[in-house]
C-alpha cells in the first residue's frame, strides 16, 4: 500500500480502539518478570556457554600481543578469542567504530577479546588472566575545545542574509552553550545469544532495528543476510543505543562458531559507556537579532560536535532550521574528528541538544527585551518552513501548546524577578521552553492473520523497546478487524516476519501502525474476495464480518485449521517531505527550586503539552513523555560523561558515576496531549511522541534556574558547582 496523499476525513474517523487508554498488553509479563529478555533466554538453545568480553585498556594505538596461556588453562574456560586472531571485520553502513578484529585500537574499551567458559564466573576469571601488551599512540585528540572541525561542512540552512540582518537588528544576543556527552543508560545491557546450524546463525538479542541488525551482522560475519536470523521480542530500553549491531552480537556469533556451541555475551555495565555509542558533545554558538518589539529578524546556530574519523556528529542546529520565523537563517553543523568512542544517535538526536541551547537563548532574548518568554515564542511562531518558505507545516499547534500550558501551569502567577519567591532557604523559579521534533515515517510491513479460533495474530519485525508497540499494534488490528484487543496476539522482533520500520527517530509507532493498517486492509480485501463481496461494503465488528445483511464469524473464514493471512507494507510517498514539514511540537513548563546556600537544584513541578497528531494510546504515550521528561531532567541537572582529556575515555563509566535521575528527583509530572489529527502523516493521522518529550525540557529547567537565581549556566549539566560561587556571599 502506498500513502501518496493526505488521508481523507473518513479514514479512521470514529475509532473504537485506536486512541483509547488500553493498558499495556505485555504488562503482566513485565510485572511478573516473565518477559523473555535476551540474556535470560535459556530455553532457546541447549548447552549455552558464557562469553566474557574484554575492552581495550587504551584509547588509541596498537595491540601488540595477547598472552592467552593462563586463561586457556583456567578451569571452565573453553575458548579464548582475541582480536589479533582475526582481520578487522568489515562494517556495514550503520557502524563506524571497529567491532572486533585486527590490532588497531580506535577507542577505549573497543572489544579486544572474548573468553568463553562454562559459567559466567569462570569466563570472567579467565578474562582477568589475559595479558595485553599495547603500543599507545600519543597523536590523538580527546578535547573538543581544542579540536578544529574538518572544515568541509555545508550549511544546513542558509536563507536570506544573516550577517546583514543581524548587524542591523536593534536587539541582539550572542551566546555560547555546551552540552556534554551523554549515555543512553538503558536498563538492559546489550546482550546476545548466538547459535550456528551449519552456515546459518541465529541471534537472540536486544536490538531496536531487526533488519539493520540482520544486514549488518551478515556483512560483519562475511555471509549473506539469508543465513542470519535475528530474534528480539523484548528490549529493556534502547534510546538509540541498540539501533545498530554491537560487539555483544559479533562476539557471541564468533564465540559460538569457534566452540560449536551456543554462546551468550552481555556487555558488562562498565564497558557499555565506552564500547558502544554516546550522544556527542556540542559547542553551540547562537546569535539572534530582533526588533525592539520582539520580532526575530535573524538567527544563526553554529555547532561543533565530536565524531570518530568517518563518523557522524550531533546535529544540534536541526530544530532551529524549522522552529521560529525569520527571513535570515544560518545553521551549520561542524564535525570535529576525535578519538573518543563512537558518537551516534540518542533519543531525539540533534533536537535534544540543539534545544538545550536554542530555547535557553530564546529566554535570554526575552529577558533582554523584557518580554514574557511565552509571548516572544508566540510572536515568532513560523507559518512556513523558515529553511524553505515554499513548504508549510502539515499541522502546527505550537501556539496552542504554549497557551494551554501557560494556562494549566499558572504562568501568569510566575516568579518575576530572581530572588522574589522563596520557600525557606530555597529560591523558586519558573521556566518555559518550546519543543520541536521532526515526525518521520518509514516503510513498514506486517502480516495479519485470522486464526482458526477467530482470534487475530499480527507478525512484524517491529520492536517494542518498552514503548508500547505490542499494545498499539494490537489496538490497530482490533480496530480494523472488529475484535477486542484481548483477541489479538502480536508477535514482534523476528527477522522471519515482514520488515518493519523498527524503533528509532520517533518513527516506530506511526510507521508500524500504518504497516499493520496496510496488512489489515489487504486481509479485508482478501476476505471480501472470499465472500464474493465488495470490500467497501464490509463492516468488521464483534468478531464477525457483516455485509448486506449477512454475518460471518471470523473463525468461519479459516479452513483446515490454517490461518487466513495477508501481508503488506506501507510505503510513504515523497509528498510528505516535498510539500510539507511534518513535525511535532510542544511546550514545557517547570518550577524549580535552588538552595540559596548550597546551590542544589531540585524540581517542584513539570508540565508538558504535546502536539503530536492522534495519540494512539494515552497511557503508553504518557508513559513515553514522562520518561522523556525524566531524561530531560537528567540532561539538565546530572548527566555528563566526564572526559579524561589525557587518557581519552569517559571516566564515570558505570551507573554509580554516571548519574541519571532517581525517583526523588522527579516531582509531579503533568502531560497534556492536544490530540489533533494530522492526515498528512499516516492513515492513522498520528505522529511520534517518544522523542518530542525530551525536547526542550532541559532548557525549561535552565530557564527556571535563571529565573530563581539570576544565574545563567550555559554549560550543561547545571550542577551546583556552577552555581554556588555565584550565589550571594554569606
Amino acid at each position, binding site marked *: 500500500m502506498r500513502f501518496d496523499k493526505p488521508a481523507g476525513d473518513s479514514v479512521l474517523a470514529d475509532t473504537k480502539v485506536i486512541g483509547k487508554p488500553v493498558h499495556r498488553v505485555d504488562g503482566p509479563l513485565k510485572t511478573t518478570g516473565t518477559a523473555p529478555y535476551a540474556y535470560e533466554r535459556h530455553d532457546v538453545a541447549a548447552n549455552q556457554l558464557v562469553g566474557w568480553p574484554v575492552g581495550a*585498556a*587504551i584509547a588509541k594505538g596498537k595491540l601488540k600481543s595477547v598472552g592467552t596461556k593462563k586463561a586457556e588453562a583456567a578451569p571452565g574456560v573453553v575458548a579464548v578469542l582475541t582480536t589479533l586472531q582475526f582481520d578487522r571485520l568489515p562494517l556495514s553502513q550503520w557502524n563506524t567504530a571497529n567491532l572486533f578484529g585486527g590490532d588497531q585500537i580506535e577507542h577505549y574499551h573497543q572489544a579486544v577479546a572474548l573468553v568463553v567458559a562454562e559459567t559466567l*564466573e569462570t569466563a*570472567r*576469571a579467565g578474562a*582477568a588472566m589475559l595479558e595485553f601488551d599495547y603500543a599507545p599512540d600519543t597523536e590523538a585528540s580527546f578535547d573538543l575545545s581544542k579540536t578544529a572541525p574538518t572544515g568541509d561542512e555545508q550549511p544546513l540552512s542558509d536563507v536570506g542574509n544573516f550577517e546583514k540582518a543581524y548587524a542591523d537588528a536593534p536587539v541582539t544576543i550572542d551566546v555560547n552553550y555546551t552540552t556534554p556527552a551523554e549515555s543512553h543508560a538503558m536498563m538492559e545491557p546489550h546482550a546476545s545469544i548466538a547459535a550456528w546450524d551449519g552456515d546459518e546463525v541465529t541471534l537472540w538479542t536486544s536490538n531496536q532495528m531487526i533488519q539493520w541488525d540482520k544486514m549488518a551482522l551478515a556483512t560483519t560475519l562475511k555471509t549473506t543476510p539469508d543465513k542470519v536470523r535475528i530474534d528480539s521480542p523484548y528490549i529493556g530500553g534502547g534510546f538509540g543505543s541498540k539501533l545498530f549491531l554491537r560487539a555483544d552480537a559479533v562476539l557471541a556469533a564468533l564465540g559460538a562458531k569457534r566452540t560449536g556451541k551456543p554462546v551468550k555475551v552481555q556487555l558488562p555495565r*562498565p564497558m557499555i559507556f565506552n564500547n558502544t555509542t554516546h550522544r556527542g558533545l556540542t559547542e553551540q554558538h547562537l546569535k539572534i537579532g530582533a526588533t525592539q518589539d520582539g520580532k526575530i529578524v535573524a538567527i544563526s546556530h553554529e555547532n561543533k560536535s565530536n565524531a570518530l574519523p568517518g563518523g557522524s556528529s550531533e546535529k544540534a542546529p536541526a530544530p532551529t532550521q524549522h522552529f521560529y520565523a525569520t527571513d535570515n537563517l544560518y545553521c551549520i553543523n561542524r564535525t570535529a574528528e576525535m578519538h573518543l568512542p563512537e558518537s551516534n544517535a540518542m533519543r531525539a538526536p540533534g533536537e535534544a541538544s540543539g534545544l538545550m541551547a536554542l530555547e535557553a537563548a530564546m529566554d535570554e532574548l526575552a529577558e533582554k527585551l523584557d518580554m514574557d518568554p511565552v509571548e516572544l515564542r508566540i510572536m515568532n511562531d513560523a507559518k512556513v518552513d523558515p529553511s524553505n518558505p515554499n513548504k508549510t507545516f502539515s499541522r502546527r499547534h505550537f501556539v496552542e501548546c504554549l497557551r494551554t500550558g501557560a494556562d494549566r501551569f499558572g504562568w501568569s502567577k510566575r516568579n518575576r524577578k530572581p530572588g522574589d519567591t522563596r520557600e525557606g*532557604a530555597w529560591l523558586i523559579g519558573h521556566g518555559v521552553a518550546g519543543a520541536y521534533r521532526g515526525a518521520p515515517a518509514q516503510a513498514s510491513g506486517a502480516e495479519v492473520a485470522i486464526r482458526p479460533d477467530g482470534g487475530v495474530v499480527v507478525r512484524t519485525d517491529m520492536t517494542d523497546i518498552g514503548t508500547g508497540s505490542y499494545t498499539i499494534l494490537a489496538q490497530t488490528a482490533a480496530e480494523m478487524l472488529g475484535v477486542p484487543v484481548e483477541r489479538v496476539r502480536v508477535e514482534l522482533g523476528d527477522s522471519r516476519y515482514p520488515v518493519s520500520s523498527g524503533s528509532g527517530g520517533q518513527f516506530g509507532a506511526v510507521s508500524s501502525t500504518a504497516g499493520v493498517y496496510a496488512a489489515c486492509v489487504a486481509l479485508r480485501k482478501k476476505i471480501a474476495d472470499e465472500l464474493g463481496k465488495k470490500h467497501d461494503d464490509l463492516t468488521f465488528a464483534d468478531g464477525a464480518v457483516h455485509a448486506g445483511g449477512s454475518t460471518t464469524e471470523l473463525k468461519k473464514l479459516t479452513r483446515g485449521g490454517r490461518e487466513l493471512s495477508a501481508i503488506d507494507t506501507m510505503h510513504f510517498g515523497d509528498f510528505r517531505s516535498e510539500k510539507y514539514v511534518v513535525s511535532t511540537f510542544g511546550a514545557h513548563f517547570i518550577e524549580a527550586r535552588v*538552595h540559596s*546556600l*548550597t*546551590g*542544589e537544584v*531540585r524540581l517542584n513541578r513539570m508540565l508538558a503539552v504535546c502536539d503530536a497528531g492522534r495519540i494512539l494510546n494515552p497511557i503508553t504515550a504518557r508513559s513515553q513523555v514522562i520518561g522523556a521528561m525524566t531524561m530531560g531532567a537528567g540532561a539538565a*541537572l*546530572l548527566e555528563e560523561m*566526564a*572526559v*579524561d582529556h*589525557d*587518557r581519552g575515555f569517559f*571516566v*564515570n*563509566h*558505570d551507573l*554509580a*558515576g554516571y*548519574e541519571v*535521575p*532517581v*525517583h*526523588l*528527583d522527579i516531582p509531579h509530572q503533568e502531560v497534556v496531549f492536544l490530540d489533533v489529527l494530522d492526515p498528512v502523516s499516516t492513515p492513522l493521522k498520528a505522529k511520534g511522541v517518544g522523542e518530542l518529550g525530551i525536547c526542550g525540557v532541559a532548557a525549561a529547567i535552565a530557564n527556571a534556574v535563571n529565573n530563581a537565581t539570576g544565574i545563567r549556566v550555559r554549560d550543561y*549539566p547545571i*550542577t*551546583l*558547582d556552577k552555581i*554556588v*560561587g555565584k*550565589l550571594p556571599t*554569606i
Partner: protein
Amino acid sequence: MRAFSLERASDPQQAAKSAASHENSKFIAGGTNLIDLMKLEIETPTHLVDVTQLGLDKIEETDEGGLRIGTLVSNTDLAADDRVRRDYPVLTRALVAGATGQLRNKATTGGNFLQRTRCPYFYDTNMPCNKRNPGSGCAAIGGYSRQLAVIGGSDHCIATHPSDMAVAMRVLDAELETVDPDGKTRSIAVDDLYRLPGDTPEKETNLKPGEVITAVTLPKPVGGKQIYYKVRDRSSYAFALVSVAAIVQPDGTGRVALGGVAPKPWRDEEAEKALPQGAGAVMDTLLADANPTDDNEFKVPLAKRTLAAVLQEAGN
C-alpha cells in the same frame, strides 16, 4: 573474581586467627562493597572469613549511659533503633542518607566503616592507581577529580572516604572495639581508625592483620540539635560531594565533621570552637590547609555554605 576459600567463623578470636593465618584474607560481612570489588578484581582475596555468624547483631546500653552497637547490626536496624533516633539523631540521618534501602538492609556497621573509596580510577583496573596497585601512579591527580578530596590527600592519592555513617560516628566520638588473633581487645577512636594516604594510600586503617571489629560504642548522649546535611547532585542514591554532621547546642557551641572532602571524616576539635562565630569561622580553620584541584575547588566554599545551612536549620 578469583577463586577463594570461605571460612565461617563462630567466635571473634577464631575469625581473627583465621584471617591472620592466611596471607591474602578478608573478612566479609554484608558483602555489599567487598563482592563488587572482587568481581572487578580490585580486591583479590584468596581466603574469606565470614563474620555474619558471630552473633554481634545487638544494640545494648552501656554502663556509661551510651550504646554498644554490634558490628553486624545492619544500617537499616541501626537507623531505625528508637534510642538512636532519640539520642543520636545525627547517626540516623547520616545512615538514611546513604545508599538505598536494599543496600542498607545488607550493609553492616563494621563493613560501612571499612568500605573503600569511590574514586572512578580506583574502579578501572586499566588505570594507574596507587591505592589499588601501589607505585603505579595516581590517574585522578590531573584527571577527573570532581568527587575527590580537597584536604588530607597527598601527591600519591586524593581519594575520599565515602561513608556517611562514619562522619556521624566521628562527630559523636564513637569508638570501635576490636579483637585480635591473640584474643586481645582494644578500642579505637574513629579518628584513629583511618590513616591519611601519605605515600602508602593502600594502607587505609590502623587495624592490625586479622584484627576484627566487634562493636562500636557511643558515649552518653550529648543532646543538642543534631543535623546531617548531605549535598549531592541528585537527591538520593549518590555519594556526598560535601556532607556536614553537626551537633549544635543551645548556646551555639557544638561539633562539626565533614564528609566527602577528605580521606576520612574531617573534624578538628579546635576549629569547631569557633562555631558560635558562624560557619565561616569554623571552616577557615577546618579547611585552612585545603589543596583542591580545579575540578573540586567548589567544595571549599560549598562546605562553608553547607554548614551555614545547617546552622540555619538548627536555628542558630
